[in-house]
């Protein structure tokens, strides 16, 4: 065997491990599922939006607008008077529609009098994730198409007023979301605001978990590598104290990091005091002191749960190198809910993804701000209870591992056989 092939064989044997491939396999799976989601979103944009339409205007321009909407949308309700509004809205909500559009009786005459025609739009918003606004964006696109058609008609008739031709309609918008009405705001504006306000916690949570988590895992690995763990375990100190001490120290450091990070972010968020000219307090979207305390509690309990999980993973780390690999699952668990809560609302997720999101402890403080803005205390409380139970169970497992040989001898022979890992016998 030549020198090159000898080295090649040895290097490949060393690199060909589950630890090398698992992260890449997981990334591939995540990209695959993201690709499926994006494909679903692409399909969603191709589907005509579902709307309700009340056309009170018998004029040409009102009919043109109605015609454009009929041609490109699935109109589930057709009305002719303002009195139909409530019924139309109910139908749109029942049919999972995006909006009820009302063309008022003076629509054509206003435009012909060089005043923009007012379209009244009742948006039915299902979720506040970035992808949840796709149906309303499609309707907005149709309104733009109707505007273009009106502009063409005005130019053809040579009744040209530049301002009106360029912008022939205005909107009087009301958005209905989670049984609340937001007058003067579109779903896009509300989503933008909610994203800004609820962006802080997911990022902070992710940063803390990754940083504090890697501290715990690395600490465990170094204890094993330097054999300080063996000394520690023979000292008159309870296993529970060792586990709790390590988790509490990492949580403390994590919280310091969080405070530093949040200080910067709060300056950024402090600038947002109103949306669409209305103060967030008047819209009922401001978080109260009690809400902030609940978010803080959620963040703290989740941090403890996350660090317990890191401790559990760290107990399997053999050395510093393997510890680096073990931080990967934690990073992924922090990233998945961060992206899910960014792109979707919990309510609009498919049941399987809802279950996954709920099962990942890090999701709960990420979802908490938005849930609290809409007074959904049940889900927040359920999350707190779940994460507390998760933390207790995980800590109990870690303490149990600390009382067994597994901490020092590594994986059990059963698992080693499953993964066909070659285990060095400890002497």
């Amino acid at each position, binding site marked *: 065997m030549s020198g090159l092939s000898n080295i090649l064989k040895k290097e490949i044997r060393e690199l060909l491990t589950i630890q090398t491939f698992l992260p890449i396999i997981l990334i591939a799976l995540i990209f695959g599922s993201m690709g499926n989601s994006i494909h679903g979103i692409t399909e969603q944009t191709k589907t005509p939006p579902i709307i309700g339409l009340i056309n009170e205007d018998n004029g040409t321009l009102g009919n043109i607008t109605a015609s454009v909407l009929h041609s490109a949308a699935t109109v589930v309700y057709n009305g002719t008077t303002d009195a139909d509004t409530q019924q139309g809205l109910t139908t749109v909500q029942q049919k999972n529609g995006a909006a009820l559009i009302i063309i008022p009786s003076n629509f054509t005459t206003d435009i012909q009098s060089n005043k923009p025609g007012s379209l009244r739009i009742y948006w039915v918003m299902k979720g506040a994730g970035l992808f949840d606004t796709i149906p309303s964006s499609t309707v907005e696109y149709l309104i733009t198409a109707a505007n273009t058609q009106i502009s063409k008609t005005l130019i053809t008739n040579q009744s040209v007023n530049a301002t009106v031709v360029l912008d022939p309609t205005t909107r009087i918008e009301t958005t209905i979301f989670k049984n609340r009405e937001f007058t003067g705001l579109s779903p896009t504006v509300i989503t933008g605001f909610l994203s800004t306000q609820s962006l802080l916690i997911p990022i902070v949570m992710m940063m803390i978990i990754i940083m504090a988590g890697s501290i715990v895992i690395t600490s465990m690995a170094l204890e094993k*590598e*330097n*054999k*300080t763990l*063996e*000394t520690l*375990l*023979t*000292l*008159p*100190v*309870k296993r529970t104290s060792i586990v709790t001490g390590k988790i509490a120290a990492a949580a403390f450091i994590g919280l310091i990091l969080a405070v530093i990070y949040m200080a910067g972010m709060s300056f950024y968020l402090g600038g947002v005091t109103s949306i669409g000219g209305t103060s967030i307090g008047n819209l009922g979207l401001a978080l109260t002191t009690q809400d902030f305390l609940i978010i803080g509690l959620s963040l703290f309990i989740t941090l403890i749960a996350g660090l317990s999980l890191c401790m559990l993973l760290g107990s399997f780390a053999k050395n510093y190198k393997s510890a680096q690999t073990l931080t990967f699952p934690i990073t992924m668990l922090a990233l998945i809910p961060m992206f899910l809560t960014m792109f979707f609302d919990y309510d609009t997720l498919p049941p399987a993804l809802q279950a996954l999101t709920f099962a990942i402890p890090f999701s709960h403080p990420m979802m908490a701000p938005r849930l609290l803005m809409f007074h959904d205390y049940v889900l927040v409380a359920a999350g707190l209870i779940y994460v507390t139970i998760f933390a207790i169970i995980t800590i109990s497992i870690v303490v149990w591992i600390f009382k*067994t*040989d597994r901490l*020092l*001898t590594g994986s*059990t*022979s*059963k698992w*080693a056989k499953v993964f066909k890992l070659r285990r060095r*016998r*400890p*002497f």
Partner: protein
Amino acid sequence: MTATVQVTNLVKNYGSFQAIKGITFSVDEGEIFGLIGPNGAGKTTALRVLATLLTLNGGTATILGHDLVKDASEIRKHISYLPEDAGAYKTLTGRAYLQFIANFFEAHHARDMVKRGIEIADLGARIDDRVDTYSKGMMRRLLVGRALMTNPQLAILDEPTSGLDVLNAQEIRKLIKTTAEKGTTVLLSSHNMLEVEYLCDRIALIADGRIVEEGKPSALMQKYQVRNVEEVFIKVVHQ
């Protein structure tokens, strides 16, 4: 004389591999007892079991009259374990490391323990330097200081002079002797037969997880008509 350590038919398995195949021995109070054998014989496993780090799969063991399985927490108050190739927390100074360990014991003894640890380690001004700047010999002396500063009733030392130069090894051997003279029982492992001959009151030769011979070094040398323990071991293994 009271037996500080009493081991009867001790068995330890790692999955399907049997590392200790039923060993029996006892160590008397104030005695230096050596487990002697080649690499992989089961010395470290036996010491780790007796140091309450690993669980046993068969047999019984008592330390200072306490059952190893039922009273592990109580045993930890009275023993001290020095693993082979052990390290210390690299961000601490030698003194801070000794203080950290002493804090696990009764508070009013902590100051005396640290003082004793510093004396045993004998690192001079370097005791206030970070541990990661220590040489291997300095590190081992610090760890021996750590292991013996608590005045344990039983010191379990795994290859205490492993990897040390002649001078450092000699100093540590003297330390162990002095500690035993003051009443501490010492259970150590070594594959250095000459060291064992110098240090141990009694030895047990262990091979392939079994004790193949036991007794005082001088008695064993006489029994096998050889000049040193190394030759005893070779004769016993070849039998």
